[in-house]
């Protein structure tokens, strides 16, 4: 599935006294199998962009093409888009409502007309993807779960419609470190094993640096940078700070050592890379 946003703008309260343009001529192509991280300060238009991507909102100007077809010109395409692009909002556990975890996860595929054994298969597969044991969890209430389990149920209910593209808005907010790491491992796994396209929005630069292959930086309704994590975090320290963002803590420290004349690579992003780089330099000495 190939997503192509052409000159897309979005204005809330159009023709009203409080009209605000939150997205300004966005041009963005998302290829099949990409892992994209979106970063930007609060209020930069990220959430609106996500809602446009899965057809929840219609652009004020411009076009959204999916596999070359304008989704707002063709009602059938729009339905297909909603089925193939799964969107998990912030704090998705707030949207849980069913009596059992099975019913919760089955809700989406059931609405799409999936029944019987295929419905059970869909639910089983989705639960497996988020590491929830089907026989243990299926009859339990989604409300008597830990924060991390609830989050996984909520993500599974998106996966159950078997979308080709998965959009996750801050999937690890308010989770403790190990639970966060577990969710991140699951996302990595879903990306690799089930070859999905993933769009991840987060304020956590360390998370983005570790997972994404390509980063989109937004500011005031525009895309200001679009590049690989290594390039983004190597060259744009000041401009990222100016727009309320940061570079990963480790990257920042390594930059400072480099400025002091230490022979360090300029694009260290993760803990593992930093460790290896420092050990390599110590050995040479």
């Amino acid at each position, binding site marked *: 599935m190939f997503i192509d946003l052409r000159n897309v703008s979005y204005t809330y309260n159009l023709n009203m006294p409080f009209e605000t343009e939150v997205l300004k001529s966005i041009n963005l192509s998302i290829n099949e199998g990409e892992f994209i991280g979106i970063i930007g300060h609060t209020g930069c238009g990220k959430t609106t962009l996500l809602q446009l991507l899965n057809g929840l909102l219609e652009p004020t100007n411009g076009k959204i093409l999916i596999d070359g077809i304008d989704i707002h010109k063709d009602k059938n395409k729009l339905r297909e888009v909603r089925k193939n692009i799964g969107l998990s909002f912030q704090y998705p556990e707030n949207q849980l409502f069913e009596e059992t975890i099975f019913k919760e996860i089955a809700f989406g595929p059931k609405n799409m007309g999936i029944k019987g054994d295929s419905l059970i298969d869909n639910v089983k597969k989705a639960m497996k993807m988020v590491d929830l044991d089907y026989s243990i969890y299926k009859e339990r209430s989604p409300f008597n779960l830990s924060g991390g389990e609830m989050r996984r149920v909520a993500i599974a209910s998106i996966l159950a419609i078997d979308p080709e593209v998965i959009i996750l808005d801050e999937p690890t907010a308010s989770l403790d470190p190990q639970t966060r*790491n577990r969710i991140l491992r699951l996302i990595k796994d879903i990306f690799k094993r089930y070859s999905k396209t993933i769009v991840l929005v987060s304020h956590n630069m360390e998370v983005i640096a570790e997972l994404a292959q390509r980063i989109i930086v937004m500011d005031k309704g525009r895309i200001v940078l679009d590049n690989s994590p290594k390039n983004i975090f190597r060259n744009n320290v000041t401009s990222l700070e100016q727009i309320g963002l940061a570079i990963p803590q480790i990257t920042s420290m390594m930059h400072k050592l480099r400025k002091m004349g230490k022979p360090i690579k300029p694009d260290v992003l993760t803990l593992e890379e930093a460790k290896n780089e420092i050990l390599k330099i110590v050995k040479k000495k």
Partner: protein
Amino acid sequence: MIRFINVTHAYHNEREESTISLSDINININTGDFIAVIGANGSGKSTFARHMNGLLLPSKGNVIVDGNNTNDSDKLWEIRKKVGMVFQNPDNQLVATTIEDDIAFGMENIGIEESEMKKRVEWALNLVGMHDLRNKEPHLLSGGQKQKVVIAGALAMHTSYLVLDEPTSMLDPKGRKEILETIKKLNREEHITIIYITHFMSEAAEFDKIIVLDNGKIALTGAPKSVFLHYDKLKELNLELPQITMLAKLLNDNGLDISPNILNEKEMIEELCSLI
């Protein structure tokens, strides 16, 4: 001082089953303390915080705030004036249409006279560094700025304790930095006691003391430098080390002569400079 004496708290669900979320907690929080509280999801952090101003009452035991017991309903207003609370989502705590009205909201409720109110709004706005933005509408502020207005509202009540429950979990990096700087200043300059719940280990590293909760009990307490030496224990409790500390530990494990409990970039650079 806030004293927890044998505090147990049990939640009851509709089937009358109870879950213990705090279990026989004993701790003193001293005036002027700058404390971070960490723990896994469901370890009892928020329940712990909500006992400090009587939003929740102990099932057993007592919480004493400057000599007043939260179990004594006559003292509850006094206690709530002293202990301000800041939650995750500032949008749930902002109520008025202007920043000044928002800060004055609590004072209006307790009938403080107008001239005094104006003075305090002014003072609180300055403390959180929002004086220049005072005429903006609250909904046009960034997340960090909104949280600062919530904090100013608590300050205007002349609160001596500020309890913040994951105040930065919805904020971008700049907003997080602003909040940490603000509460540091409030502690250092105004001697306001800070109790700060967080899932970010790098934030916890910046406090004087850390309380680690596990299953409703205090599992560890101490200065960050000593708490973050307990790598295995923290891992067992679903926590981890701050990234910089983790790097120091990994390097130390690999035979480098570096302290395993480095807490921040500055310390790390100092130690590495003599090695590489």
